C-alpha cells in the first residue's frame, strides 16, 4: 500500500486525517474506508492533511467529494491542508478549491474552524 492513513483528534470535535503517499485508484479505497469509519462514528468535522501527499488523481478527489457530501448532511465540514503547488493546481482546475476550505498549514485550518 503506497498510502499511509493516520487519524487523530484535534481541537473540539474535529478529527485530523493525515495522509502520506500517493492517492490513486489503488490506494484511495483505504482513504475512503478511514473517512467512512470516522463519519459512521459520528465525526462530521474533518481536517484532511495532504501535506505528505505528492500525488492525487480523480479517484482521490472523488473520495474527498464523497466525504464532503456525507458530512454536509450533518452540517459538517471538510477542510484540507495542502501546500504542494501541483496538487493545489488540481483543485484549482477542477473548481474544487471553491467547495473545500484549503489551507497552507494545519494551524491556519484549525484557526479558521474555531
Amino acid at each position, binding site marked *: 500500500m503506497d498510502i499511509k492513513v493516520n487519524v487523530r483528534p484535534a481541537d473540539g470535535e474535529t478529527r485530523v486525517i493525515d495522509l502520506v503517499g500517493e492517492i490513486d485508484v489503488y490506494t484511495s479505497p483505504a482513504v475512503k474506508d478511514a473517512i467512512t469509519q470516522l463519519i459512521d462514528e459520528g465525526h462530521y468535522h474533518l481536517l484532511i492533511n495532504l501535506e505528505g501527499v505528492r500525488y492525487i488523481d*480523480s479517484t482521490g478527489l472523488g473520495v474527498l467529494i464523497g466525504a464532503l457530501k456525507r458530512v454536509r448532511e450533518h452540517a459538517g465540514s471538510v477542510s484540507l491542508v495542502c501546500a504542494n*503547488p501541483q496538487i493545489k493546481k488540481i483543485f484549482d482546475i477542477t473548481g474544487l478549491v471553491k467547495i473545500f476550505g484549503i489551507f497552507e498549514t494545519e494551524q491556519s485550518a484549525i484557526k479558521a474552524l474555531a
Partner: protein
Amino acid sequence: MTVQQESESVNVVELRIPCKPEFVSVARLAVAGIANRLHFTVEEIEDVKLAVAEACTNCIQHSPHANEIVLTSEMAPEELRIVVRDNGGGRSGGEESAELGGGRLGIFLIRSLMDDVEYRRDEGAGLFLRMVKRVAGST
C-alpha cells in the same frame, strides 16, 4: 541533427499492463521516464503522469471486460503523443456511477492537462484515448 531525424520513427515505447488498480503506478512511472527524455518542465511531467493515470483509471472503472491496457508513447522532439487503449468493452454507460471517480472528472482533467485529446469509447468497445503534450515554447 540528421541522426535525430533518421531515428525519430523508432522512438516509440509500448507498455502493456493488466487492467487493475495496482498497475496504474507502473504506467505513471514509465511515462515519467519517457517525458523526462523530452524537454518538459517538472510540472509538465506531472501533468502527463496524471493524464496517463486518469486514462488507465478510466479503463479499470469503465471497461469491465478489459484485462489489458496498452499505452503507446511516441516521442517527437517537440511533443509527446500517447495512445491509451484497453481490450474490453465498456458496458453501455450503465455502470458509470462508480463513486470513486475516474469518469467525467478524469476526462476533464486529461483535457485540462494535455494539449490535444481525442477520446472515444464506442458502445461495446474499449477505450481509445489519444493525447498530445507539447513542449512549452515549441509552437
